[in-house]
């Protein structure tokens, strides 16, 4: 049995793993899941505002990704390709949720809270950010997160979202302006 504590990490490239999965060794897909799980869960959480929807969208994206893996044109960019699927699932789930409830749900990510020195302050700040994010237009929120949280280039964002580079720049710019206004001037947009 492999000892989890001391085993060397075997880092296969995305392209190699995709190739192995496509040859029928589906277990290898677990490596891709592990590789992108946490980072993309964070993206989905920020897009959807609650952990349950985020995990559901992410699980859905991984399964859809597996089912259509043969259509992944560039296996070396599996991550971006999967993120495009996830962004799409988030749009669908976000629209569904917006019809269901206008309230921005919180309190699911309490793993955050536990390690903080000043939980009350930090939690108030987190809540402000969460509210501000939730009040952005979904396209703006997506562009903002991809650019500034995921640190992507506009060309890459264009592949993920299907939107043009100039449109994405405008979304990011507006998202930043709006976030700044909400967080510094207390703009309370009527989002509900």
């Amino acid at each position, binding site marked *: 049995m492999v000892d989890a504590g001391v*085993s060397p990490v075997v880092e296969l490239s995305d392209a190699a793993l995709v190739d192995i999965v496509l040859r029928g060794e589906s277990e290898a897909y677990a490596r891709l899941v592990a590789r992108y799980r946490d980072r993309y869960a964070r993206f989905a959480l920020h897009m959807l505002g609650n952990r349950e929807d985020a995990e559901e969208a992410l699980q859905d994206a991984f399964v859809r990704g597996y089912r259509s893996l043969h259509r992944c044109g560039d296996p070396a960019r599996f991550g971006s390709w999967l993120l495009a699927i996830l962004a799409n699932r988030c749009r669908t789930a976000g629209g569904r949720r917006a019809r269901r409830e206008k309230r921005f749900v919180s309190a699911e990510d309490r793993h955050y809270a536990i390690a903080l020195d000043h939980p009350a302050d930090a939690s108030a700040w987190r809540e402000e950010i969460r509210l501000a994010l939730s009040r952005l237009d979904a396209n703006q929120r997506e562009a903002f997160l991809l650019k500034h949280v995921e640190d992507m280039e506009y060309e890459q964002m264009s592949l993920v979202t299907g939107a043009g580079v100039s449109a994405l720049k405008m979304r990011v710019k507006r998202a930043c302006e709006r976030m700044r206004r909400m967080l510094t001037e207390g703009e309370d947009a009527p989002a509900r």
Partner: protein
Amino acid sequence: MRQHDDTEDMSRDETLERVVQELRRPLRVNASLFDARVMDEVMRAPSGVGGRFESLLRPRTFRVSPLIALAAGMLFAVSIAGSILYVLPSRSRGAPSARGAQSEVARAVSGSPIVEFGFVAPHASSVALVGDFNNWDPKATPLRAASTGGVWSVEVPIQPGRHLYAFVVDGTVWRPDPAAPQATGEDFGEPNSALTVADPGMR
């Protein structure tokens, strides 16, 4: 190009730096249970990728290259060591149907948030949840094994507040939840995990 640069420079003042810093905080997913669920669906998924699904339904029997065996073995080992805590007040949506009735009953009885505990242990013959909410009684809250993947889980009504808990595997082995904060030294000298359940009224 200049407009591009201006856009980016202007967009990251001090406030937005703080926002970005907060939003970049790592998120810890309930890894082993999440992965088990994805892979469970993957193994059952009709797909264009080909593969020998009959054999793949026995995911622990690797007949693959040494590198992949090692990688998959590591994942498996991690999943054995790992356990997963769902700190969501359950809304049952997306939960396996076998648990639905139980959680409805539990919610109706207690009114407390339902917390789903999960533990991946394919070779265990029993897994139990012990914590301050059941007097650390290994017989009180057994987990049930899913049909595949070695995923054990149980849904329990837990009163809002901070709790300590652990899992007992095969009746003897005490396991904290590595996916949750540890609270060593607070109780009995055993490594326990800490859980904070939010008051649903606060949401």
